[in-house]
């Protein structure tokens, strides 16, 4: 069993670099074992305005000329990365589950998991490291 890092994203997508940095750092965990003798397992949790990263049909290519956060999230789901979305924050922003990114578009076997903040707190306690973005 290697180390687990929880990446907590609280900022909205685009014009804030943090969510993309969280995603790219999380993906980098899959090759971290070239530096150390153990595997590093990333887990992501979207909270507060960070849940806005998880809405599907993002059109960043058209408006900003950059790859969408949606595409990155789908790639992560296709890599079987565990990804949580805070249920309370989705409710606060009136975002229904059907508006969330669907990992199955990329053939992913896992999907975004809507969980209560209590569950995310438990992950913070359980993981070896927590990185806030």
């Amino acid at each position, binding site marked *: 069993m290697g180390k687990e890092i929880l990446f907590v994203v609280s900022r909205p997508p685009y014009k804030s670099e943090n969510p993309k940095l969280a995603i790219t750092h999380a993906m980098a965990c899959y090759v971290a074992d070239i530096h150390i003798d153990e595997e590093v397992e990333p887990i992501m949790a979207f909270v507060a305005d960070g849940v806005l990263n998880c809405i599907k049909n993002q059109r960043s290519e058209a408006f900003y000329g950059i790859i969408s956060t949606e595409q990155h999230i789908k790639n992560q789901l296709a890599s079987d990365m565990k990804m949580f979305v805070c249920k309370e924050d989705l409710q606060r922003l009136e975002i229904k589950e059907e508006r969330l990114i669907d990992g199955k578009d990329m053939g992913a076997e896992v999907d975004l998991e809507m969980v209560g903040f209590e569950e995310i707190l438990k992950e913070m306690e359980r993981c070896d*490291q927590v990185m806030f*973005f």
Partner: protein
Amino acid sequence: MATLSIGLFSSLVGSMNSDFALKLAEAAANKGHTVNLWFSGNATTLARKGQKSFKDYSYLIEKITALPEKGVSVAVCEACAAARGIHKAEVIEGITVHSMDWYVAKAAQSDRVLHIGGE
């Protein structure tokens, strides 16, 4: 003694985050701890050579260059730096250039990880 990894995401100008992160890294190193300092996002601008001191702006070059001499591993994110036009040849001596896997590996094996700043 413990290992501390600090991820810094703020630029030189705009907040006191960078000043604080460098002071913290220095203080931890002085106490004998192992310190990894990672410049990512806008913090990569701190690693650029040729910064000039003006009285109206933060000037941290001396603090930054002193850290590797104290044993602090200072590294800059290659992709974040390149996105800002900062390439290896322009990075201050003593600061290494790595991809993110280096940092997450260091962080995974640290006793504490702190992220400071961000946009």
